[in-house]
Structures are given as structure tokens and as C-alpha cells.
């Protein structure tokens, strides 16, 4: 599932990076509310756990095996904001330390395996636990959440592939292959998530973010053996945060960037097509509705090569992503910061 360098075209990589950066920036702010001073250690532990469990391959069907994505599990254990941060860290570490997943595909990977799995998983989980309560309901909701999160991620992958995959494979075939395999993987993920959450719930329910609010009254024993009961202090009510700012920020940044990048890229000749024309074996490349949008097209005309446009586009993304992260950091620490480069980014 880890997408390597060169798998998606530059526009998709860039847009996904922008979405990922915006999502992570929003979560950096949200995470502080979820776990207080335990955020970093708990997040680190869950990240290490997700990393380890991703190495745990389980057999799916005839010869293929799948591994856990872990997004839904992380969301249920530590809350959705921290979960996104965990997944981002796992992917960063895998990319930089283990060369697993391309550095330029980091945005795609964080979007697919972090944002999408967490959002889908947590959404389903909340939907079920809003009306049902108790351990069995939480465990069942965990199963459903993880089950949905994997095909959701595969679907998002297919969508990205449709927009800007570099491999000329029929979108229907990709959808079928990804969908089929990932529904099966989803069942595995659902089972593992449900059993993990169930086990933790049975032993340490206080560790499950999705199951807060269990506290019994305290008993005091006096020297003579007499007992008095002290009612527990009321737990602060935690309200679920809407995912809207998340989505708005992502969509906004994507649109801005898509505009910028396609401005630079419009009318670029694609390398293959140029060669194909020269060699005279041009077969009409598959056209899709997004063909004229972004860099997905094998257009014609002269001008700047795609590569150079790509470098420019990626440079812009880095600037924007940096600005978003910087702004979020500043706001997080509460230091006054003159507004700059934050226009259009709704964090």
C-alpha cells in the first residue's frame, strides 16, 4: 500500500501533499485537547504499535496476504486528531528511515493511510456509538470502523489513480483489484481492530479514547474499619470535534494548488507522447474527464517541460505546507505572529 516515488504524477503528489499538510496542521491543534501531556508518549506508543502491526502480515486469500493499516485502530485508541499525527509519523519514519514509501509520495501516503482511514474509521465509529453504548457496542463499532476504513482508503487510491496515475491501466481493473483485495483486508483489519480494542477494553478501559467516562465512587477506610464513600469528581465532558475544518482546509488548499500548478503545466508535452509521436507509434492514450485538468494529460504544444513545472509546483507546495505548519505551531504556542503567507489556508 505504501506508494513509491514516481507512481503518481506531480500534480497529484503535490495536491495530496497539500491536503496532508493541512490535515496534519488541523490535527496538531486538535490533538492537545485529546490527551494533554500524554499526547506525545501515547501517540509515540500507538505509532510504534501501528508500525509493528503493519509488519504483521496475515493471510487473506489464495496466496496473497495483507497487513493492517491501523488508522481506525489508532483513532479509537487515542482519538482522531492524535491518530492522524501517529499515522503521519509512522509514514515519515517509514519513508526516511526505512525507505518504505517514496519521499515525494509522502503526501499521497499520509492522505490515503492517515487522513482517509482515520476519517472514515472514526466517522463510522461515532455513528454507531452515538446510539449504542457498552463494551459490546464499542467492540462491534471498532470492527465496522476498521472494515470500512480499508476499502475507503482503496477507493481514495483508485480516485487518485484515475486523476493522475502514471501507469496506463484501466481504471475499472484498478478499482476491481483494489476493491476486491481491500474488502478482504478490511475484514482482517476489522477483526484485529475489534479484538485489540476488546482486549484493551477488558483490561485497561481507560486507555481507549472511544470509551471514556467510566469512574466509580471512592471508598475511604478509617482506622476502625469503617467505610465512607466519596463521589468522584465530574469528568470533563469531551465533545466530538466536527471534521469540517479538516475537509474545508484540505479542499481549499487543493483547489488553490491545482490552479497554480495547472497554470504552469497547461499545454506541456508529456515525454512519452513526444517520443511516441517521433517514433510514429502513437496510440491514443486513454482520455478521462480530468484529462485537461492538472498534468494528467498527454497534451501537445511547446513550452516548459513537465519536470520543470513539477519542480516549481512542488516548491510552492513546500512553501505552503511550511507556512501552514508554521502558523499552526505559532498559534499552538500562543506567541504573537504577524500574519504572512497564511491567506487562503483555513486551519
Amino acid at each position, binding site marked *: 500500500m505504501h506508494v513509491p516515488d514516481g507512481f503518481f504524477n506531480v500534480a497529484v503528489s503535490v495536491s495530496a501533499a497539500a491536503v496532508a499538510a493541512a490535515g496534519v496542521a488541523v490535527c496538531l491543534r486538535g490533538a492537545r485537547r485529546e490527551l494533554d501531556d500524554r499526547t506525545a508518549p501515547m501517540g509515540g506508543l500507538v505509532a510504534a504499535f501501528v508500525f509493528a502491526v503493519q509488519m504483521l502480515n496475515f493471510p487473506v486469500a489464495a496466496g496473497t496476504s495483507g497487513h493492517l493499516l491501523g488508522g481506525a485502530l489508532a483513532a479509537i485508541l487515542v482519538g482522531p486528531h492524535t491518530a492522524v499525527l501517529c499515522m503521519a509519523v509512522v509514514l515519515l519514519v517509514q519513508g526516511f528511515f526505512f525507505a518504505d514509501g517514496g519521499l515525494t509520495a509522502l503526501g499521497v501516503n499520509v492522505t490515503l493511510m492517515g487522513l482517509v482511514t482515520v476519517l472514515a474509521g472514526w466517522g463510522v465509529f461515532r455513528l454507531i456509538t452515538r446510539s449504542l453504548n457498552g463494551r459490546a457496542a464499542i467492540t462491534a463499532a471498532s470492527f465496522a470502523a476498521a472494515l470500512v476504513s480499508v476499502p475507503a482508503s482503496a477507493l481514495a487510491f483508485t480516485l487518485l489513480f484515475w486523476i493522475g496515475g502514471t501507469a496506463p491501466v484501466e481504471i475499472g481493473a484498478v478499482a476491481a483489484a483494489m476493491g476486491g483485495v481491500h474488502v478482504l483486508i478490511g475484514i482482517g483489519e476489522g477483526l484485529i481492530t475489534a479484538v485489540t480494542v476488546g482486549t484493551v477494553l477488558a483490561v*485497561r*478501559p*481507560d486507555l481507549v479514547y472511544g470509551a471514556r467516562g*467510566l*469512574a*466509580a465512587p*471512592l*471508598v*475511604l*477506610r*478509617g*482506622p476502625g474499619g469503617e*467505610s465512607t464513600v*466519596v463521589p*468522584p*469528581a465530574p469528568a470533563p465532558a469531551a465533545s466530538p470535534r466536527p471534521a469540517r475544518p479538516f475537509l474545508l482546509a484540505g479542499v481549499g488548499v487543493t483547489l488553490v494548488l491545482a490552479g497554480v500548478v495547472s497554470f504552469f503545466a497547461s499545454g506541456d508535452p508529456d515525454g512519452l507522447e513526444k517520443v511516441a509521436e517521433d517514433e510514429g507509434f502513437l496510440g491514443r492514450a486513454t482520455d478521462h474527464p480530468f484529462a485537461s485538468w492538472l498534468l494528467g494529460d498527454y497534451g501537445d504544444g511547446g513550452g516548459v517541460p513537465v519536470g520543470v513545472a513539477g519542480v516549481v509546483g512542488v516548491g510552492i507546495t513546500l512553501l505552503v505546507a511550511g507556512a501552514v505548519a508554521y502558523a499552526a505551531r505559532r498559534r499552538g504556542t500562543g506567541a504573537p505572529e504577524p500574519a504572512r503567507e497564511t491567506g487562503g489556508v483555513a486551519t
Partner: protein
Amino acid sequence: MTASRRPGDGAVASLEVSRLAYAYPDGTQALFGVDLRVERGERVALLGPNGAGKTTLVLHLNGILTAGHGTVAVAGLPVAKDSLLEIRRRVGLVFQDPDDQLFMPTVREDVAFGPANLGIRGEELQQRVEDALEQVGMLEAIDRPPHHLSFGQRRRVAVATVLAMEPEILVLDEPSSNLDPASRRELAEILRSLDVTVLMVTHDLPYALELCERSLILSGGVIAADGPTRELLADAELLAAHRLELPYGFTVA
């Protein structure tokens, strides 16, 4: 029950716990109103069977767990959210498993971690690190990775990591567990040589007798006995009532 609380001569106690009660978030209650007082310079053993709430009590002493009811004060300063950093400087907690305590790549960095968190840097930091390691006789291991040391050496380094913070009171959780007899004796010598208040949590009764004049028995989430170690250990009935046993062949004269 032997109650022999010495008068504090008007001075502030190193540690004062009153009516402390706590339940884990899963609803299991571990402490049911603990009262205890440790004077400055004392070495006190906290005895109790497994599951008596010893570790839970220890985690309250530096504010890692927040009391559900009751108070803890260290050298007069109550444990509260806004005093946590100072409380953690004053209470040096040595955990049972040195592998939990040592997490930096070298002994030097590990010992420096605590004082560095207090904002100490440069020359003074180096001096603190070296002094602390000198006190536990581990100065020559300063640049080695902790996981290359023997278990006994690691426990001594763990003590040094806490000494480097110049604590008011040293709290040791099962200091003698898993030590071979020689390491055990060396650690006892080190602890005796330190000029600091010590609270030692253990079910190793001979070790308590060797190091501490006074002992407390924690049982069922309350302090069940408090008195001179020798007297408590001589009371076979008291020990049996709280699942404490002297090793075979060991008698208290």
C-alpha cells in the same frame, strides 16, 4: 499495631501523606486513606505484600497519579498541578526495572536528562552528572550505553539519574529485586553512604532490616503498622496477617 510516630521537633517533614485514596480509571480502588510522615534524614521501609498498593502510593508521591482524595506534601510543598516540576525535583523516584528508567543512548545523557529538564546546561550539568555517577561508583561507565551494563550496574546508574536532580527524598521501588548477593551488598553500601531521606518500598524484609530503622506496613490500601523495623519483623502474627514472610532460617533477635 505499633504506633510510634516521632515528634517532628517542629521541623517540616520530608514527606507527609494524609487520607490518601485512589481508584484506577477502570474502577479498581487501590488506596483507602493512607496516612504517613517521614522526617528529614530518616530511612524508612514501606513493606507490603504484592497488590497492597505500594507502587500506586509511590506514584502519588511525585504527582504522577493525582489523588482522588487526600493530600501529599514534600518538604511542605503540596503536590498540585502547578508545583509538579519542583515536586519531581524534590522526589527522586527509582523504578523497579532499570530498563524503564534508562532510555537515553549513553549513561552520560541519561543522567543529564533530569537536570537538563530543570534547565541546567553546560559546565554545571557535566559536574552534576559526574558527581552523581561518582556517588554510585559508576563514573567509569559514563560514556557506555546503559544496555551494555550488568543489571546491578544499571540499577546503580538508575539511582544516579535521580541523585543528579539533588532530591529531598529518594524513593526506591524494590531496590533489591533481581540483584545477585554482591550487587545487593554494594547497593546497600551506596544507600547508606548517601546523605538524603530514603523511602524504600520492598517485600525484602532482611534488606529493610539492614537499611532502615523504621518500617511501615501497607496492606489493603491503608497503613496497617508503623514502628521500628526490628519490632515489626519480630511480630510473627503481624507479618502473617499481612502476607509477609521472613526468608527460611532468618530470625530477628
